[in-house]
């Protein structure tokens, strides 16, 4: 069954849904409809897409995206690719965990890396980074720390533990604090291209 047939099938079953083919995938324009579409595809006797292979977050600068690859274990067909787009300001996507258990860790991963907030997820915590980590490191605008310049927090910590800190480092940290900046890693050299 090709993409167009699947699209018309979904549109027939779920009236009011807006789908748009993007390359080899179907873009669901209203993110809230995602679980309905997934449940339909899973329970449909012809398609029987019972296996969610991959959940991927992605950052396209203007919007964030979540991509789902569905296969059928029963019919050995696939993939049917679904995608949902959300704005950076309110990245809320309904979770697929109630329908596919396999989405659990992958959605947590997308939350950790891209800050996609999956509603109704049973246990949405950071999966790879620690609790208390700020920012979403895989977003294209994430700024990494400079690992060789100490900041005031580091100096205070070292003082607390009685470690000697060279004066130069102290001064640099104080300067940074006066400027109200973080020690962010920058591209100092020329581009490699």
């Amino acid at each position, binding site marked *: 069954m090709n993409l167009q047939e699947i699209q018309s099938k979904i549109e027939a079953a779920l009236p009011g849904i807006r789908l748009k083919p993007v390359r080899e995938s179907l873009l669901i324009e209203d993110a809230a409809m995602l679980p309905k579409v997934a449940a339909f595809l899973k329970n449909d006797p012809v398609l029987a897409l019972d296996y969610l292979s991959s959940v991927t977050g992605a950052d396209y*600068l*203007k919007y964030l995206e979540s991509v789902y690859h569905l296969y059928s274990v029963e019919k050995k067909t696939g993939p049917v690719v679904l995608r949902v787009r959300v704005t950076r300001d309110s990245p809320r996507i309904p979770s697929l965990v109630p329908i596919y258990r396999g989405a659990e860790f992958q959605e947590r991963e997308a939350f950790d890396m891209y800050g996609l907030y999956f509603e109704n997820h049973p246990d949405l915590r950071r999966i790879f980074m620690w609790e208390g980590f700020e*920012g979403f490191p895989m977003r294209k605008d994430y700024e990494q720390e400079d690992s*060789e310049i100490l900041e005031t927090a580091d*100096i205070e910590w*070292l003082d607390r533990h009685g470690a000697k800190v060279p004066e130069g480092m102290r001064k640099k940290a104080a300067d940074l604090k006066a400027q109200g900046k973080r020690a962010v890693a920058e591209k100092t050299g020329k581009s490699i291209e």
Partner: protein
Amino acid sequence: MAFSKNQSEVDEGLKGELAKKGVVVTTINQLYNWGRQSSIWPMQFGLACCAIEMIATACARYDIARFGAELFRPSPRQSDLMIVAGTVTKKMAPQVVRLYNQMAEPKYVITMGACSIAGGPFIDGYNVLRGIDRYIPIDVHLPGCPPRPEALLYGLMELQKKIQSQEIETTEWYQKGMKREYPVPDFGPHGLVPKFNPEVWQPRELDHRKDKYGEPILIGRKTKAPDLDAPLATPPVAQPPKPQTA
């Protein structure tokens, strides 16, 4: 032969030592070092890829037991040597430092593989610690990605050489007020706090990589997202590269 030359050098040193300290101390030193160097118990502690090579070293073909180091202890309290085999991430680093602190004296550390020495190929990651020597002192660095099992044995032999050169009177663990426990870093909002312990490690003066590329690789941060919605044009044929001018 390099070996026989080494021997004679040791003998020269030994003569001088004998003249200074007398027979008893020197003999005890030798006995003490011999005992320690031929029963190094490593900690059973693998982090990543290099750990598999470490296991391979312990297995039949390379057989680390020939060096008296086959007893991999799961507990840091019973081990003499920590082989940091694999990438130390920022999330794991406090645990590694804590394990080091828990080890009983005398304790040694081998960093196995590029990752644990300096971050290795993953040096630019946001969660990768650029070398465990930022927090604890290292005795032998062993580069490679991953080093062959033979290379690990070579590293162990290097460590044995180091042990041989130690003396009871000057070893760190018998000194008064010697600090051999290092503070465990905390998790901060962007990385570990502190980023390094300046008592153990300080930034290298000459760092080509940093000079040339800046800190992370981030080869030109991209500002233009691909437009997958655009109708599929005829796929552009991948352009062959320009011929090299030799």
